[in-house]
């Protein structure tokens, strides 16, 4: 449950990046997962460089994030310039294809810089567990998880403030409603769209750093699945809707964490043996194995995505949905 919540917060922050871009240009930013990956990698490099200095761990991680944010902002800006701006009025297939191209290029540039191996984050933060009960077996939350949840909440609050309380936020909302009219009102639409990509990317950078610290590993292809799950979360909540992305992200984290545990238990071969014929031999051979164990955890996000698209395409909190291809 706590794992799910932590994961959910990370998904929510990444999903915000998707949903913001979608809200403004009505396009999926396929390269967003790669932005998160680059954030993770940059943070990793800084943390590795600073780890031997003996600075307090939170300063080191903070420095990692501080380096990752501008790097990702630059990437986000470049992605918008290269892949989206020149094709803003082209048929929608075109920017999707360039975005895929850009994300492949980013992935393999990262491969060149950081090698194709799974790289391990140095363990600089000593893991402390805080138990909710008195016994050792009761549910626990670690200090890293607390930090991730707190950071995510702060980021979300900051974003909401930005969107609903600042001039830039007003401009963003105006642009998402009607770019032409917003332009007529004196808003520099290009700048607003750039700003949206950059803000989304900076959220992605923080999320990347958090994922890296949480799992302790990073890989040049990590952005793809993370991006897919976060996108599913954004769709679940209703794409284009900020609160929806947060809700969807947290739900997605919970579904994944709980699903991996419970679906595994429910499809345990010995349990199935009681209801369905044919499982007894397997049950005797390996009573622990289940039909859909935790190795299927990556599938749940996708199933959720399909279910949402079939039954409620506008998402939980969504308002509108286009059915044009």
């Amino acid at each position: 449950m706590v794992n799910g919540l932590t994961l959910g917060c990370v998904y929510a922050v990444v999903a915000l990046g998707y949903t913001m871009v979608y809200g403004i240009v009505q396009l999926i930013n396929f390269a967003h997962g790669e932005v998160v990956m680059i954030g993770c990698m940059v943070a990793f490099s800084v943390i590795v460089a600073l780890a031997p200095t003996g600075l307090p761990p939170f300063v080191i991680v903070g420095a990692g994030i501080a380096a990752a944010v501008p790097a990702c902002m630059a990437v986000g800006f470049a992605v918008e310039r290269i892949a989206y701006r020149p094709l803003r009025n082209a048929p929608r297939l075109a920017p999707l294809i360039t975005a895929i191209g850009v994300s492949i290029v980013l992935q393999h540039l990262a491969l060149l810089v950081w090698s194709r191996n799974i790289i391990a984050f140095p363990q600089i933060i000593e893991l402390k567990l805080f138990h909710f009960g008195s016994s050792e077996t009761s549910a626990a939350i670690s200090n890293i998880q607390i930090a991730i949840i707190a950071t995510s909440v702060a980021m979300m609050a900051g974003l909401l403030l930005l969107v609903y309380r600042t001039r830039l936020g007003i401009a963003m909302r105006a642009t998402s409603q009607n770019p032409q009219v917003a332009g007529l009102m004196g808003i520099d639409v290009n700048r607003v769209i750039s700003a949206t990509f950059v803000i989304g990317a900076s959220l992605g950078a923080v999320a990347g750093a958090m994922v890296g610290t949480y799992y302790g590993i990073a890989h040049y292809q990590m952005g793809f699945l993370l991006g897919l799950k976060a996108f599913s979360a954004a769709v679940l909540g209703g794409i284009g809707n900020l609160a929806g992305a947060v809700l969807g992200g947290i739900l997605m984290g919970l579904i994944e964490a709980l699903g991996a545990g419970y679906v595994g238990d429910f499809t345990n071969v010995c349990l199935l043996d009681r209801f369905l014929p044919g499982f007894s031999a397997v049950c005797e051979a390996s009573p622990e194995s289940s039909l859909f164990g935790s190795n299927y955890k990556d599938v749940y996000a996708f199933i959720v995505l399909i279910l949402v698209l079939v039954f409620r395409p506008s998402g939980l909190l969504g308002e509108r949905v286009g059915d044009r291809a």
Partner: protein
Amino acid sequence: MGTPSTLRDDPRLKWAGLALIAIALIALPFVLAMAGTAWVRITNLAILFVLLSLGLNIVVGFAGLLDLGYIAFYAVGAYVYALLASPHFGLHLPWWAILPIGAAVACLFGVLLGTPTLKLRGDYLAIVTLGFGEIIRIFLNNLSEPFNLTNGPKGIATIDPIRFLGLDFSSATRIGEFALSGTIKYYFFLLAVLVVVIVVNLRLQDSRIGRAWEAIREDEMAARSMGINTTRMKLLAFAMGASFGGIAGGMFSAIQGFISPESFVLNESVMVLAMVVLGGMGNIWGVVLGAVLLSFVPEILRYTVEPVQRMLFGRSLIDPEVIRMLLFGLAMVVMMLFRPAGILPSAVRKRELATGREGDGDDA
């Protein structure tokens, strides 16, 4: 008769040209074999990629739907072949029975995936197919427990080769002095399939269905008002593309003799898409050209860049595989920005992509 006809219109010249191309294609493997059997094998893989690109072209080029998990159908076809013609289950069906089954199963998967998503906007389809490709791979990787269906990451080995007219395609046949290697036999087999697929594609493009797809791609609203059942037509495009992928997958299985989930990663889908985009979406010959180019150029680079790097720096700095993927990514970006209709654009597609740029931004 009296009208001045260009060379193109003369039927005799046309046939002569076709005959010339046919002779060149028949001679090709023997010429390549002199440079090394590896090149014939690369050519075979290139033909497989041409088949895949043609299948994806139906979805992306004809109907204008972005499918990013196309390799999943290839995987389905490959695994169907592997399961029905290997010692894994002890089944050894002949290829002419399995290839249609593979196509049908892939088609079924296409329909399953397309039904919920095709009613929605194009980008949903793109991301759902992206996920689908990955999910299929996860299942292939994990379906070794508790029932061993796919043998997990270890893959399935010793898959039966194709046997045809008493010829075993896995080994060389001697005809007098002359030895015909298995790779070359596969080349001719693939070539024959390719010709059939191209003819089917050409006929499809000009058919009622092909024109309906084109209409949907250009303006779905208008197509619907003209009485086209758009959802059904899109589903049909998706299913047909999937079946072609399934056939190509079955042949991949037979040629390689070994498959594992490793062969069906996302990058493969992206490669096929890059081939379609580079050559020109919607143009059959363009797609063929794109697939051939993107199959051979990385191989040529592999044989040139690596030695050059060794010469200059004493070791290999950049993995050729990375260069290859960078090339694919860049090809897509550059093509979309500067020549969105591809190297050999289809006439209609060119018009559409050009007008799309000038005006109707609201449409997007």
